[in-house]
């Protein structure tokens, strides 16, 4: 059984007990524990069930490579699934639950799948559930999804907050082990600004556990001294609990900092995502130990040898009293020695190499540990925990020679440098036969915007094996990074290292070498996705030669650990099955993030009120307080209508229209785009941008204009006012202000740069308030300050002046067909002017109206709306706007395109009005008209569609506009609009102007 030792544990503070629960069971650990070490200290060997077969699984590793120990942590708004127990720091009150089991971890119904394992080979789901086709969606998929999957999704909104931080460093060092620390010190000493990020809470990495001496002191002492030195340097940022998650183009580097996971009771952001521009990144990311492939290597208690050592040294936790070691290299002997020195028993070291004579081997033998050379584990006995191992000859097929009782197995199949960061931006790898690993090829590194290699691997991550070469390599990396970012590094002498000499390892991809099918089918490669040796071999037999295809077919390496433990072992099996060398098979692609990061950190602070910036008019708060029923208009919020108590939206809209038509209404039109165009060539420029003539516009007058794209499609419309001989103010649609301003600037800057024109977007300088209706003038006259009579300020004119003591510019323009003044006032006085209008208009029952009333009134007048009547494929001619297309101008944007045959095609759908035969029936928006014919596929031929449709309170009936084939030539015809329910609405084609066709009301 696993337990806490009486002494030891570098990271834990035995004076600080931390109570926590696992599946509701009350347990306790110490400050400094990970959840994994605390579970092991409480003999909780079984921590989860596997994905596919629901096999009992225990903790395998001690870091982010852990495949099995995934738990849900927290509750309610702080529940989070799939957290690794090995990277989850323990805190008092932590509530963890196991995953993928029902009804309980100890008794899991799904484990019946284990007995059925022979029926679940690679590709089982693809092969089995393909027929009958219809069953997949409705039967197979829902059942499989219920049974499979890892943790549960949180059910409540995330209670925490997150943030970004942007930073720029000459050098970012990924990894706070001895390589990272040495590299950081070297680069920082040269003067470079350095960020050193360590994913765990502790600096120093593995070296202090492994027991080597640096500069005559234990590695831990060197780490402490170096960290202390770095902390004094102004140009160094040290961040622990911060993982370099990914490297992207141009040295863009993501660092994931976990601020609160170890102390959720503290306030402030939980995670912070650093978005760093790094001159150079030093990947000092260390290496990950590989499992060995023997039968039963997934039974709880079978762990990586380095992890077993970590738990003893770092946390004072023994994973078992009797631990069998299985290895193909010298490093695992460190575990045997550590365990023996801690007073635990190592009954045997199962050594795959026939001869092993390194210093560590000799030391183990000197301690009296039995080393069984040339031997292998043929099978691990036990179900929910290890009970014994059967030994066999590594060269044979697995015939058991002896059984050794034990309660844990520490395995080491060699090491793999962590090459992820090197590879994210395309760094290439070389296969190293001696160590049986892929290591970065410095001549084929990832390159930055200058075409230069910008990631430097350092330490064991670059392929340096022993402590001495790790430090030398790291110092060189630090110096290179500093030099390449413009500094002059001074030589730092590599520290003297005292470490035992290690003998070469032996690549072992199968244990024993000739393992039978029965053994291989119980030998796991990928624990999390339940991929066995036989699955990969089957894939190879079925023709999956590419490692990428094999990965997807077998799901090897596709789980949340992304194959940190399984990739190399898996592709070695694939290579062997294909009779190829490992480098010929190659690796799958390493993609960011290195280890899962929270969705919250990716969203950053963009949630709640900060989710998306909303543009607010100067009168927003008043409108909100007075029944404004909001609708989004581009990034603005505009009131659709103002609801009074007990009033429906429809009733409010009708009330607003009738009040405006019969007396006076008040509209906030501030969102309309307003762009100043000034210069000696301004008139010429606008003639090019608009389809109609703007150069003939008189100062003090307004003209409605259309803008098209160079392909002739209608892009925007609005009223242009000529402020002076060389200055125009162009109104755009609410959604078009930024787009049209950019459009103007693009043509000015790229095509007509010789025109002397300046533009400024002044949309937000003004609150624009429309006073609309037969009594509009009376309201303004009450405010007083300027002459607003028909003579002084006729229709389509504007004037500068003062109303109610506020500086104003009223435009006599009308989108409703009524007498209308759109009055621009400085935005800071928008609310004040609005209030004055309400006060002056009170005796006339002045009624604020929203966008829907505006829409209905403009439709009654047959005015088009960009985005309703247009959709990017409509040209002005389709809308009967030929009068706004100048024939006199040599050129304007869209002119040439409008002459194309498609644009002059008489079959184009054209704008008409539509009156339903039943005046109470309102056509559905976007409804299509049919003519009764069908095409070759039986589809009904369409001959038109509805673009705007409303109930008009003014006319007491439904009205609509639509684009109809030959529409203007078919006045009076009745056409059919089928509804989805089969019902047909009949509508008559009429003139699109339903109200005041002569325009008398607006021109008074």
């Amino acid at each position, binding site marked *: 059984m696993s337990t806490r030792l009486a002494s030891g544990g570098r990271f834990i503070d035995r004076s600080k007990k931390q109570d926590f629960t696992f599946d509701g069971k009350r347990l306790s650990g110490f400050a400094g524990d990970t959840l994994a070490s605390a579970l092991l200290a409480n003999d909780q060997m079984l921590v989860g069930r596997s994905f596919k077969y629901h096999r009992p699984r225990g903790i395998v590793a001690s870091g982010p490579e852990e495949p099995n120990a995934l738990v849900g942590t927290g509750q309610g708004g702080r529940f989070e699934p799939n957290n690794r127990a090995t990277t989850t720091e323990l805190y008092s009150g932590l509530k963890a639950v196991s995953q993928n089991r029902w009804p309980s971890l100890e008794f899991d119904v799904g484990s019946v799948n284990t007995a059925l394992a022979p029926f679940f080979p690679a590709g089982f789901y693809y092969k089995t559930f393909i027929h009958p086709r219809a069953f997949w969606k409705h039967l197979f998929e829902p059942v499989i999804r219920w049974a499979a999957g890892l943790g549960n999704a949180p059910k409540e909104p995330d209670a925490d907050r997150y943030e970004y931080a942007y*930073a720029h460093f000459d050098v970012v060092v990924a990894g706070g082990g001895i390589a990272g620390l040495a590299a950081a010190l070297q680069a920082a000493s040269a003067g470079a600004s350095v960020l050193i990020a360590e994913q765990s809470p502790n600096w120093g990495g593995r070296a202090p556990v492994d027991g080597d001496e640096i500069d005559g002191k234990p590695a831990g002492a060197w780490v402490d001294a170096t960290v202390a030195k770095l902390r004094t340097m102004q140009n160094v940022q040290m961040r622990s609990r911060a993982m370099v998650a990914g490297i992207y183009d141009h040295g863009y580097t993501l660092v994931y900092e976990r601020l609160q996971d170890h102390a959720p009771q503290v306030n402030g952001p939980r995670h912070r995502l650093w978005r760093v*521009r790094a001159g150079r990144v030093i990947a000092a990311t260390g290496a990950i130990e590989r499992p060995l492939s023997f039968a039963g290597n997934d039974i709880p208690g079978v762990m990586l040898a380095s992890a077993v050592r970590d738990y003893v040294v770092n946390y004072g936790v023994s994973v078992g009293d009797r631990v069998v070691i299985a290895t193909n290299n010298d490093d695992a002997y460190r575990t045997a020695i550590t365990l023996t020195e801690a007073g635990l028993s190592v009954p045997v070291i199962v050594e795959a190499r026939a001869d092993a004579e390194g210093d560590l081997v000799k030391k183990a033998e000197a301690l009296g540990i039995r080393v069984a050379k040339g031997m292998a584990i043929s099978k691990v006995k036990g179900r929910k925990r290890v009970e014994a191992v059967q030994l066999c000859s590594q060269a044979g097929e697995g015939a058991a020679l002896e059984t050794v009782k034990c309660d844990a197995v520490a395995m080491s199949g060699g090491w793999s440098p962590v090459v992820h960061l090197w590879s994210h931006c395309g760094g290439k790898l070389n296969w190293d036969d001696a160590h049986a690993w892929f290591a970065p090829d410095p001549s084929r590194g990832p390159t930055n915007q200058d075409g230069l290699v910008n990631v430097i691997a350092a330490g064991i991550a670059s392929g340096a094996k022993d402590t001495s070469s790790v430090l030398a390599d790291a110092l060189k990396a630090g110096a290179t990074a500093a030099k390449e970012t413009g500094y002059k590094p001074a030589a730092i002498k590599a520290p003297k290292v005292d470490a035992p000499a290690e003998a070469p390892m032996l690549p072992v991809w199968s244990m024993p070498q000739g393992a039978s099918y029965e053994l291989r089918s119980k030998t796991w490669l990928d624990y999390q996705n339940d991929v066995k040796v036989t699955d990969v071999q089957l894939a190879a037999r079925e023709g999956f030669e590419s490692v990428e295809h094999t990965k997807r077919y077998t799901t090897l390496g596709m789980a949340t650990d992304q194959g940190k433990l399984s990739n190399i072992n898996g592709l070695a099996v694939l290579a062997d099955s294909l009779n190829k060398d490992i480098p010929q098979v190659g690796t799958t692609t390493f993609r960011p993030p290195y280890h899962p990061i929270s969705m919250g950190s990716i969203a950053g602070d963009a949630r709640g009120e900060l989710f998306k910036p909303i543009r607010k008019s*100067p009168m927003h708060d008043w409108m909100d307080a007075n029944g404004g029923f909001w609708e989004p208009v581009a990034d603005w919020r505009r009131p659709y209508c103002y609801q009074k108590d007990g009033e429906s939206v429809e009733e409010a809209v009708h009330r607003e229209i009738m009040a405006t038509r019969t007396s006076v209404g008040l509209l906030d039109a501030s969102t309309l785009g307003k762009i100043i165009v000034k210069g000696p060539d301004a008139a010429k420029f606008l003639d090019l941008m608009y389809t109609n003539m703007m150069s003939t516009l008189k100062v003090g007058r307004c003209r409605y204009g259309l803008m098209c794209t160079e392909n002739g499609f209608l892009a925007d419309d609005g009223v242009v006012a000529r402020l002076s001989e060389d200055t125009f103010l162009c109104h755009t649609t609410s959604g078009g202000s930024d787009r049209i301003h950019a459009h103007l600037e693009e043509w000015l800057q790229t095509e007509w740069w010789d025109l002397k024109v300046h533009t400024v977007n002044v949309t937000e300088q*003004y609150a624009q308030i429309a006073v609309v209706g037969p009594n509009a003038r009376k309201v303004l006259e009450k405010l007083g300050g300027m002459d607003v009579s028909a003579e002084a300020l006729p229709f389509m004119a504007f004037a500068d002046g003062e109303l109610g003591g506020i500086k104003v510019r009223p435009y006599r323009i009308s989108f409703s067909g009524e007498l209308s003044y759109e009055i621009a006032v400085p935005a800071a006085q928008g609310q004040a002017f609005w209030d004055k209008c309400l006060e002056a208009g009170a005796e006339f029952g002045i009624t604020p109206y929203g966008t829907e009333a505006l829409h209905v009134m403009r439709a009654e007048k047959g005015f088009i709306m960009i985005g309703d009547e247009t959709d990017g494929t409509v040209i002005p001619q389709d809308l009967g706007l030929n009068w706004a297309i100048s024939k006199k101008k040599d050129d304007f944007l869209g002119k040439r395109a409008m002459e194309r045959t498609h644009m002059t095609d008489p079959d184009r759908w054209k704008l008409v009005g539509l009156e339903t035969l039943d005046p109470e029936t309102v056509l559905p928006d976007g409804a299509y008209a049919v003519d009764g014919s069908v095409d070759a596929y039986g589809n009904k031929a369409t001959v038109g569609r509805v673009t705007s449709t409303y109930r008009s309170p003014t006319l007491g009936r439904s009205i609509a506009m639509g684009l109809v084939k030959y529409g203007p030539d078919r006045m009076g015809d009745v056409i059919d609009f089928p509804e989805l329910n089969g019902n047909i609405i009949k509508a008559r084609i009429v003139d699109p102007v339903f109200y005041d066709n002569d325009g008398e009301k607006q021109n008074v």
Partner: protein
Amino acid sequence: MSDAVSVLNGASSEGLNKVSDAGLKGMITLKGDLTSEPMSKAVKSAVGLAMPASGECKTGAKGAVAWMAKDELMLFCDYADADKMVEKLEKALKGEHFLAVNVSDARALFKIEGDHILDILAKGTPTPLDGVVAGQFRRSRIGQIAAAFWMVSYSEAYIVCFRSVGEHMFAWLKTANNAEAALDLFSS
């Protein structure tokens, strides 16, 4: 103009720093040939300052002038003086190709005072901040909003953005300025 109000009417919030709506400020967009002599003279007579270099903000007793683009400046003055300053510029630049326009009402202006100014900015803007420390005027973004910012001292900075998103900016500043969210990047 007593009824003119800034977007948050002077609201302020304490945290790592003090952040506040800095009220109404006169702002004039001036476009033209920044290398021309009449332009330099016009700027000098308007705010008493020399033409700023690329990315620079110059501050003086009469106002300030910031470099916005190769052909664009922003002039700062008292809110009430903005229209007069536009007239003055128009007179001074008569015959030149230029555009001067009062944009004071289109803007929201925020002030940050404290010892963690750069840490707050670093949470929102991707631009390198060493240039801002050195007196530069930066047009970038903060959070999701286009914004410009500059420092007048190590403990006083200003942010200007469009008025319509002023509330969002203030909410963002309050969040980033949360006393429990110290970044400790520039200050520790």
